[in-house]
């Protein structure tokens, strides 16, 4: 009788322990279902459902990124714990590795190995959300540091150092009309290089087939020519335009790509 009682108590205790552990783990679905996981993923990421299934949460993509654009998700992301994400306003992916190092580093194919070049990435899509904020739309130019002194983001400036990205706050601009979003767009930079007969790494295949962004004439404002960025079909949603935009909040932000299953704010 006594033995039965202890057995029963051990069983109930063990059941509670098991239920607590399973319950804690299953709570991980809440952020996923509620859409709290509003993450932009690295290049090549599968659609969100498959991405969460396939990512082994090792962070090898984080380690190879030359501009350190990729961060690791916390337990607040539930099942998305340990997955990589990008906050483009802080640090966008500028493809300065050229070879999609994060894709090559991924051991499971959560970042699909089917893409090789920057223009094949489908990370997000840029959207002009605050045109009234745009410096160029006010007919103004831009002089100084794009994001101020304290901003820690980096970009690769080909003309300065092909191999090492530098801090944006070490690179002041002086532009007659602000066009930073177009000037720093990795797709546009590649198109320009290709048109000059000098494709990245000397590889024709690095050449993007379509432009991603351009400044569109908006007539005369304050006696000067006004422009507004226009997002084109070649945009891969890398987020550089969002990062570099001096306006606060930025004129352009990254939005989810249809079919990616991701929500971006």
């Amino acid at each position, binding site marked *: 009788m006594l033995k039965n009682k202890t057995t029963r108590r051990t069983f109930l205790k063990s059941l509670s322990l098991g239920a607590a552990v399973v319950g804690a783990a299953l709570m991980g679905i809440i952020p996923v279902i509620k859409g709290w996981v509003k993450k932009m993923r690295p290049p090549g990421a599968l659609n969100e459902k498959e991405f969460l299934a396939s990512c*082994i949460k090792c962070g090898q993509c984080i380690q190879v990124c030359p501009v350190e654009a990729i961060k690791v998700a916390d337990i607040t992301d539930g099942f998305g*714990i340990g997955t990589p994400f990008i906050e483009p306003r802080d640090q966008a992916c500028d493809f300065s590795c050229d070879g999609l190092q994060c894709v090559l580093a991924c051991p499971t194919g959560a970042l699909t190995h089917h893409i090789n070049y920057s223009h094949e990435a489908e990370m997000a899509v840029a959207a002009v959300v605050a045109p009234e904020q745009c410096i160029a739309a006010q007919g103004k130019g831009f002089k100084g540091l794009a994001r101020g002194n304290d901003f820690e983001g980096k970009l690769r400036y080909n003309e300065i150092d092909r191999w090492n990205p530098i801090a944006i706050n070490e690179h002041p601009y002086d532009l007659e009309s602000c066009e930073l979003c177009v000037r720093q767009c990795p797709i546009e930079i590649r198109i320009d290089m290709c048109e000059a007969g000098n494709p990245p790494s000397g590889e024709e295949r690095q050449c993007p087939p379509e432009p991603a962004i351009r400044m569109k004439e908006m007539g005369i404002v304050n006696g000067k020519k006004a422009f507004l960025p226009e997002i084109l079909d070649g945009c891969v949603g890398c987020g550089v335009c969002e990062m570099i935009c001096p306006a606060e909040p930025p004129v352009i932000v990254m939005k989810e790509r249809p079919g990616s299953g991701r929500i971006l704010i």
Partner: protein
Amino acid sequence: MSKLKESFRTLFGGKPGKPDPANFSDDAKVIHERQSGKRTADFKEEFGRTKETSRKNTYWRRRRWLVIIVTNLLFVLSYKLDIQMLEGALTGSRFVGFHLADLNASLQVMLAFKQVLINLLIGTVTVFIMWWLLGGRTFCSWVCPYHILAEWAEILHVKLYKKGWAKNFKFDRRTRTWLWIIFAVFAFLSGYTVYETISPTGIISRALIYGPGLALLWVTLILLFEIFFSQRAWCRYVCPIGLTYGIVGATSPMKVQYHLDSCHHDGECRKVCLVPHVLEVTKAKRADEPIVDIPADCTRCGRCVEVCPTDSLLFKFKGLGS
């Protein structure tokens, strides 16, 4: 063969069986017979002193802690100093470019994703072979960063327990097997790597490499539970990673071996063991052979090896000379 079956049975949580003395080998019978004689008072006194010294022996523990720290530091430094030796985290990494994947993390991904990329396969097979050779649960006590924290928490637990400030609830060891199955089924059905959400191994590994986060609060919670309510509960009753590596190590050539001849059945080993059921054989009249392999759930931590006053428990790599 029946030894292996028994090894798996106890790994999955079954209570260790009592072997029938009728089936003991002749050599074992002779030793058991000889050992049943009375011990003299002089012997007892001297042996007591030997036990005291052996109890303080931390030869393997010191080496093991060093290995855990160095391995995890190698991950951290590979990233922080860009020395590129061991890139990634414990769930998946590259050792000088060669893929490695944690078996349980890889299993979760395979079940959830239902596709296996060649890189993951290479990493998984490599790690499988590595830990099969090294003893399976050797991963737990020689690499897992949670293990070392839990070991420190255990030292505190034992102190508090002696003072009556902590309880030590025991659970059914089959819980771990059920959790392993549940997490595998959940991964397959839901398409999410459900266990990774709460895996302290992955959480600590990433926290060390990429910086701390809120997930460490969960790890703290488990440690507090172990300190105040149940000694080494996670490793003993919960962790599916431990079971996965236990299965891999069941047939491993790397063993802790028990030598009946010199044993005084004093149970010093069972007091320090993370998984004391694997040491049932060290009780009097249990060993059916003069030399018996400790079964699969053993983490090869070496605590029993170092505290045994008579060196009756020793590391052994089978196939190599003694």
